[in-house]
């Protein structure tokens, strides 16, 4: 069929930051903006 790369489903960075009690600080310092990725390319 072709070369296949397995993807692992793991904890997201959001979950890791949450577990370390750092998510609130991260989001405060860096407001979540999903548009930024696409605006950069355009």
């Amino acid at each position: 069929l072709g070369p296949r790369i397995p993807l692992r489903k793991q904890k997201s960075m959001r979950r890791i930051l949450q577990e370390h009690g750092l998510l609130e600080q991260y989001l405060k310092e860096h407001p979540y903006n999903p548009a930024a990725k696409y605006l950069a390319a355009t």
Partner: protein
Amino acid sequence: SSAEPLQNYLNNEYFGTISIGTPGQEFTVIFDTGSSNLWVPSVYCSSQACSNHNRFNPSASSTYVGTNDSVSIAYGTGSMTGVLGYDTVDVAGLDVVNQIFGLAETEPGDFFYYSPFDGILGLAFPSIASSGATPVFDNMMSENLVAEDLFSVYLSNNDQSGSFVLFGGIDSSYTTNGITWIPLSAETYWQVTMDSVTADNQAIACASGCQAIVDTGTSLLAVPSSALGNIQASLGADSNGQISCGAISTLPTIYFNINGNGFPVPPSAYVIQSNGYCSLAFEGLNIPTESGELWILGDVFIREYYVIFNRANNMVGLSPLS
């Protein structure tokens, strides 16, 4: 330069391993159909933030060819700067020779320490690649490493394993429900024209058409902010997207109508349950394009379909998994 803020990848859960150089140095990366560059940290990054990640060491690779070209990645907590270099990249046993990639030299900030991935491997089109760097899949095609100029993605819903990216082929065991092919509206991202978004035969958003990107590098469904409120109201959620977990069984299936076909996403997919709370897997963004507002169909959508990204004829194929 490139700007792909790290927060875009805050929710990502799917990671794969590649190796770069001779002998190979391993990296955990996001296979991102919403960007086009390959980036990994390098040994030139000596901060604590990088200490928790694999770092590429050019001097340990006999096939590395350096450049003097610098690059910069805005990672939310500051810029990760670095240089461009060429080396052999092993992806799923395919040796892509002379692959250009970014070697990050400065850390993106303390939070990068907690990132579960080392870098990003972009699978979108060369037209949006920073610094004109040829994307990995374009080199796979030009070096005749793939049988067909396409790759396909399966994201498992629950399992820790089972998800994959298949290069150069389509696994017919995932297409028993048929494949619907959709032409791209732009050769930048994997972008298509969406006719409308409906629930219970009523348009709840995108009533006059809009643009949609199929993006494995985004976890949720990103919708124009102007449409988010209506979606939340239509589904009985509050303005934060919170919804009663008991109401899930009464929620409608949402149809993403693309190229004359409806692609359903059931409430079991678009409602996220965590710690006893339920919320809609929608988030707002504002990106107007010449062809209408932009939607991002992330992993929440992709988990419902086996998705074929076809560079041979610039189409996306969707095969329902249930």
